[in-house]
């Protein structure tokens, strides 16, 4: 009850904070600003208490709360229990709100120092008002008995254990990836709030300097969070890639692409005082795209068009999400339109041979990517509105677009660093571009020599070499000026490295399907794989029997052992397998073993027979078997241990057609996770030492009379053969995939350097401006 009331109180505090900052802005009142400040601190404190409270409820297994029951269980270790905090919609909204407030706690004194407190915190408070309203709708402190009151659940009915965390999330990455991603989302609010403040105050240039470090921070953190998700997918999901263009992935990529464009256009404005309206619009769009992406992935509108699950949040939350988005679109576009004439401060045209022109083109290409990904991600919704089949676009849609866009962005990036601000001589352009073109041509020739023949990887390779050559040259030139100057070049070098990783992995990776028999080495391409055995792990979970499979990989005498995991769980009613790949990490190549299936080696003599047909027995060419029909389960009744039974009625004859006897081959059927399993009742085959059993029935759904049965035979004079355990895998090598991860690290490091540089420049500028924007200024 306290928790639920607390959430309502937080909403009230957020609204009151917004109102006080609005009054402070209108009246220039320091008292109102001071009240707003304290209300903000109180709300932030309240959010911290709520978060600590929810974590406490989860860790102490308070299943009287629906959220705790729904996402946690007693078996989970502490780090996963903490991760349960944000595993559901309610908790993740609380995390997002908490992080917005936490960033606000740093932003508030920062904005105050620059004289922007009320105008920035007004919009920031409004964002928090909507977030806390969402929390009211999706309250993580709802009681179990309240949620299921309609089902007759009472206060006394407290579950003894929770439903548990989705097994796919049982991974260390869940403790890192969502908080980083939400920090990125939360920091998108800052650029928006500054842009709105700039519009309100008619300061169309100054906000750029002040907001730039925050925008860089948001871009770095969101970018890092996105690629951590990719790394998680690569390491855990077992499909071998790190990016699948899934709506959930796209929903974080779209705002990132917009904010990348914004960072570059902010730099243009900083230098040239141009692109004023563009920056306002991009700041609005970057935040609105966070809201739109949230709406797409949390409102349930995408339904079952993704591998991620989208829970319908309920009508109230749906409308709040929609209102959240619409309100900020209206505020953002409204203010931009209202001030549009005022903002026409520079009508200067950029010459094509200038850095501002090339950066604008680069930002346009990045925005084009954002728009196209938005169209693709929204496609199921567009189709539903048009009354057409609601289906997500195929991955090839995104790949086709980006095989044009990414090389273009890399080429523009390279040229933008060669040209100068304002004007560039043809001589400088030549001196800058020609060596990079030579490097790119030679680099592409190397790729060609190493077997890349497709045009698009070659084009991407050419562009990546070009960008890398220019960025490295510029970075080396600036080494003496200190690392702070190198931020952009380090980031761009990281992106070029990432692209090389993508090219190498997609062009040189070889994949093999292999069925491994226990203890038997198998040659798979240039590698020898041996399935060594399995070990049950995580026995504390009762919903699964989880096994770790040991596979040895040998090449040129070098041995590696990987441990993929494959299991079925009650969590998804055993409808599909949970699997984790085994990866032998390497700087040059990863060896990736993705488990596919387990089973037993077929060691019997067997034959397939269809109803009404006659086959020769595989153990005696003079013996014929005719399948008359299959009996139905109701004819046979259940077996002694309760299993369903069917039988194949078989006539045995010799080569001349003389009957030898009739058999009723019973088989007991268990419906397993991977389909029906058959346990035959073995019967002696007349006139031989062999036994025969019906080991499988393959039903033909189109024509049941064409259903087939598999008959297996073994010699009863010998011990019954036992097949070895089989482990089916998809084995692949991933050359230079490490470049992807190192590229991301370099990109984030570059952003870090740029933030330092932007803050230092701002400090110098503020010192020069002096007391004009001293603390205590209300606006």
């Amino acid at each position, binding site marked *: 009850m306290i928790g639920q009331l607390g959430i309502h109180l937080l909403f009230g505090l957020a609204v009151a904070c917004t109102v006080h900052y609005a009054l402070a802005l209108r009246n220039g009142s320091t008292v109102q600003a001071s009240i707003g400040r304290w209300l903000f601190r109180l709300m932030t404190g309240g959010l911290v208490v709520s978060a600590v409270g929810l974590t406490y409820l989860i860790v102490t297994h308070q299943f009287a709360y629906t959220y705790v029951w729904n996402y946690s269980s007693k078996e989970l270790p502490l780090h996963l229990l903490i991760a349960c905090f944000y595993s559901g919609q309610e908790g993740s909204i609380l995390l997002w709100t908490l992080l917005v407030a936490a960033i606000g706690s740093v932003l508030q004194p920062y904005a105050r120092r620059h004289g922007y407190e009320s105008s920035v915190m007004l919009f920031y408070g409004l964002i928090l008002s909507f977030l806390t309203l969402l929390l009211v709708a999706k309250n993580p402190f709802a009681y179990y008995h309240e949620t299921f009151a309609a089902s007759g659940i009472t206060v006394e009915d407290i579950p003894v254990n929770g439903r548990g965390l989705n097994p796919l999330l049982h991974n260390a990455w869940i403790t890192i990836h969502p908080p980083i991603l939400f920090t990125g989302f939360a920091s998108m609010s800052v650029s928006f709030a500054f842009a709105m403040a700039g519009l309100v105050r008619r300061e169309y240039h100054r906000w750029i300097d002040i907001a730039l470090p925050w925008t860089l921070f948001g871009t770095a953190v969101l970018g890092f969070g996105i690629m951590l998700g990719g790394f998680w997918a690569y390491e855990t999901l077992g499909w071998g890639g790190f990016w699948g263009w899934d709506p959930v992935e796209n929903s974080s990529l779209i705002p990132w692409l917009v904010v990348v464009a914004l960072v570059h256009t902010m730099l243009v404005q900083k230098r040239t005082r141009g692109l004023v309206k563009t920056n306002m619009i991009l700041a609005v769009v970057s935040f609105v795209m966070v809201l739109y992406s949230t709406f797409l992935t949390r409102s349930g509108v995408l339904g*079952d068009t993704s*591998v991620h699950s989208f829970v319908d949040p309920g009508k109230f939350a749906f409308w709040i999400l929609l209102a959240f988005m619409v309100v900020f679109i209206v505020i953002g576009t409204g203010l931009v339109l209202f001030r549009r004439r005022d903002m026409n401060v520079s009508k200067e045209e950029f010459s094509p041979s200038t850095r501002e022109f090339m950066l604008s083109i680069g930002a346009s290409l990045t925005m*084009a990517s954002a728009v196209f990904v938005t169209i693709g991600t929204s496609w199921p919704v567009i189709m539903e509105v048009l009354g057409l089949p609601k289906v*997500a676009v195929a991955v090839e849609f995104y790949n086709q677009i980006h095989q044009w866009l990414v090389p273009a962005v890399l080429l523009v990036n390279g040229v933008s660093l060669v040209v100068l601000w304002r004007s560039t001589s043809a001589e400088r352009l030549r001196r800058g571009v020609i060596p990079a073109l030579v490097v790119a041509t030679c680099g592409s020739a190397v790729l060609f020599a190493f077997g890349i023949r497709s045009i698009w990887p070659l084009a991407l390779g050419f562009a990546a070499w070009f960008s890398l050559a220019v960025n490295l040259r510029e970075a080396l030139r600036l080494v003496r000026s200190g690392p702070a100057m190198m931020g952009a070049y380090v980031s761009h070098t990281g992106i070029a490295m990432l692209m090389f990783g993508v090219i190498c992995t997609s062009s040189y990776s070889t994949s093999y399907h292999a069925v491994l028999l226990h203890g038997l080495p198998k040659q798979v391409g240039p590698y020898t794989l041996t399935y060594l055995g399995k070990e049950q792990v995580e026995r504390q979970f009762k919903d699964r029997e989880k096994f770790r499979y040991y596979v040895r990989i040998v090449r040129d005498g070098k041995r590696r052992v990987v441990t993929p995991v494959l299991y079925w769980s009650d969590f998804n009613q055993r409808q599909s397998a949970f699997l984790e790949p085994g990866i032998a990490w390497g700087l040059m190549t990863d060896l990736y073993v993705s488990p596919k299936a387990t089973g037993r080696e077929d060691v019997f003599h067997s034959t397939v027979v269809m109803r009404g047909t006659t086959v020769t027995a595989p153990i005696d060419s003079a013996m014929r078997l005719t399948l008359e029909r299959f009996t139905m389960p109701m004819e046979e009744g259940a077996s002694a241990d309760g299993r369903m039974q069917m039988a194949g009625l078989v006539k045995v004859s010799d080569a001349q057609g003389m009957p030898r006897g009739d058999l009723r081959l019973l088989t007991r059927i268990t419906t397993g996770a991977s*389909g*029906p399993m058959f346990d035959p009742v073995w019967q002696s085959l007349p006139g031989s030492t062999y036994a025969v059993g019906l080991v499988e029935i393959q039903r033909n759904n189109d024509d049941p009379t064409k259903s087939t049965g598999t008959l297996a035979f073994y010699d009863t004079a010998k011990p019954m053969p036992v097949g070895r355990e089989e482990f089916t895998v998809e084995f692949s090598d991933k050359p230079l995939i490490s470049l992807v991860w190192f590229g991301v690290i370099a990109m984030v490091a570059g952003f870090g350097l740029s933030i330092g540089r932007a803050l230092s420049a701002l400090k110098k500028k503020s010192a020069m401006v002096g007391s004009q924007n001293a603390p205590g200024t209300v606006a």
Partner: protein
Amino acid sequence: MIRKIIIVGSLISIPAIMYLAMQYGQPPSVSFAEAIDKTQHTSESDPASKVMVDVVITDASDLASIAATDNAGAGFSIQYTGTAPTSPLKTGMRARFVGHVHGGDTPIFHATQVLFP
């Protein structure tokens, strides 16, 4: 100049992208047998790909188990879990269901959308 480039680029690229999305965002129209085949060729850990099946409804008294016959004449059961159909489903009606097959001994078609051709 940049404005012109962006306007011309948008005028050309956005319709092109919409066309491309149409090509890649359309589920294949298949028979029930082909839908089963698609499910069987999907990895155990992946969701079955979505398809459209044109049917004649033979019994729609229960949306959780609609009896239908596809164009190839095969009878099968449809479990419908989408939003309420825009017009009530009736026996003899032609409809297009979007969804995928759940395998097993007796496969059923799990539909999440129904359209009326």
